[in-house]
């Protein structure tokens, strides 16, 4: 069509609205990232009083800013544990659910129902049970369990999406070529599903890394990072808090970039570059 079309007025309204939304989304975060580089004498608000890495180093001095190093280590370890459990069980469950078996529907709904349960109550309940059976709550026990109630159903749903595009004929071909069940899983099923597994791992890791309500009453004596940050907002009155925000964001970004990057590399190797 040669005729030049004028954009309707609604375009400008929606575009301005979207701009406002983006500002609202990223503006505050950007302010925090910038303020984390505040000079040593600077405060919690603009203007910047010089530029330094002072508050990043301050983070690791426990007495001033709370136990950042400890909670950061706990959160990363917990996130890794959650990730490993989520990937392992989601893959096994996903493969099992391809065939209908007795009670499969009931089990599926039971697994997914924990997504809609309020996290705080779940946390409360798990904390209670641990007290009843007289086992101390801890981040690697009760908190791990509490977080899995959240990440496993997610992982399972992602596996359903991944497996819906996985043809059974790959497994049949492998068996036809003499592979045992273990070899079929090892050499065919898992490698083909690998990009999907990375997606499940990424979800498991990030959901755990910033989980708050399910961890709150199950974490035991040592805080995870989100709980520590929450505690710090009431006690810390220095830009160290902002430095913490910057560090945690960088960790999340690194996790996402590593995952998406490795998926892209795998797909590229499998010749997606040759498809139109």
């Amino acid at each position, binding site marked *: 069509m040669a005729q030049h079309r004028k954009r309707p007025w609604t375009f400008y309204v929606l575009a301005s609205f979207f701009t406002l939304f983006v500002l609202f989304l990223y503006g505050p975060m950007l302010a925090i990232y910038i303020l984390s580089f505040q000079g040593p004498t600077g405060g919690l608000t603009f203007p910047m009083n010089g530029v330094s890495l002072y508050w990043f180093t301050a983070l690791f001095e426990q007495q001033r800013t709370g136990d950042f190093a400890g909670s950061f280590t706990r959160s990363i370890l917990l996130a890794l544990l959650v990730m490993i459990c989520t990937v392992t069980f989601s893959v096994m469950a996903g493969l099992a659910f391809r065939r209908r078996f007795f009670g499969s529907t009931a089990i599926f709904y039971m697994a997914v129902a924990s997504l809609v349960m309020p996290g705080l109550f779940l946390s409360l309940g798990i904390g209670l049970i641990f007290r009843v059976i007289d086992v101390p709550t801890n981040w690697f026990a009760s908190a791990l369990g509490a977080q899995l109630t959240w990440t496993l159903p997610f992982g399972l749903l992602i596996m359903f999406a991944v497996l819906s595009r996985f043809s059974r004929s790959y497994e049949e071909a*492998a068996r036809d070529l003499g592979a045992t069940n273990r070899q079929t899983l090892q050499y065919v099923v898992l*490698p083909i599903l690998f990009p999907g597994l990375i997606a499940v791992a990424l979800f498991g890791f990030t959901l755990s890394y910033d989980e708050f309500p399910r961890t709150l009453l199950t974490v035991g004596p040592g805080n995870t990072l989100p709980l520590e940050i929450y505690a710090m907002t009431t006690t810390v009155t220095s830009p160290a808090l902002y430095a913490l925000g910057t560090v945690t964001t960088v960790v999340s970004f690194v996790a996402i970039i590593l995952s998406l990057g490795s998926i892209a590399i795998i797909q590229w190797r499998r010749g997606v570059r040759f498809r139109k």
Partner: protein
Amino acid sequence: MAQVGGVELANVTKRFGDTLAIDRVSLIVPPGTYCCLLGPSGCGKTTLLRMIAGHEAPTSGDVRIDGQSVVDLPPAKRGTAMMFQSYALFPHLTCLDNVAFNLKVRGVAKAARRKQAHEMLERVQMDSFADRVPAELSGGQQQRIALARSLITNPKVLLLDEPLSALDEFLRLQMRGNLRQMQKEFGITFVHVTHTQMEAIAVADLVVVMDHGKIDQADSARGVFDTPRTTYVARFIGGQNVLGGKVVRVESGAALLEDARGNRFTVPAGDTAPTAGETRYLSIRRDRIEMEKLADPSAARGDAVNSVVGKVWMTEYQGSWVKVSITLPDGEEFVANIDDGTFFANPVREGDTVSARWSAAAVHSLEHRESGFDTSRVGMHA
């Protein structure tokens, strides 16, 4: 080398829940045969193939390969190899590793299995693609890799599930010749599932025409084309005009039939003696019809035996022949494939009234059996 890979199905039945997929099928495929299982989709041909491969277990009956029952053996222990419909090449492995997969799971050392896989790739002229992954190959190239991957297991029987359906027309013709050549070269049995009549007739020594979980006819390619056993086979394979009529008279080994419009045909008596009043069916090949334009349509009264009169509704030039479609007064379609020289010496046009004749010797007697499937749309030259 003695030929191997005889396949025998003995009274094989397969049910999926309440659905009867295969109904007491018995078949003998001699060693070194190129066999095609042919039928419309849903006729059970793929299920039959998967039961030979061991990816499906028969509900009852026996599957034997070279005389030995294999129903209790896993796919890899049967001496069969299967080529899947979309090839199922492993997308994460190079062509070389795909072909070497069987050797790898059997524990053959890396250098030895690579050497063997390279040799197999050479046999299918794909060695220059060894380091590519399947997504980088065309459909025809993927098929050769799949073939190499199957053949490296030294199968006695190669099972091919619609091996040409993913290819375009040009490649299909080329690859089917290629498959036939490979089968001769390796001297093993091929069982090839297809729904394309021409494909089966072109490559197979033994064509097995299936319908509704049963075998209608297992015969040579020429046998199913030239002497179909039933009305279903004649219509499904195509290239035939199928007619029916009531027996009026029986004389010297032939019966005289009359259809509802008063047309009269002779049909050889066949195995069972015809009795007056019963309905008999016959087929005449489309290329055994002589056609004549009637100058005065009103005078047209097919008095002559072995002829019909109708209106031409379509002529289709096919190169060496012309397909003339004639509508009979009762709406039935009758097709004459006329040699191009004969046609253009005396051409007819759409709307002309013609009389189509054939000799009594061209008539073939059929058993009556119809399919629930619509066979009118799957005629070979349609």
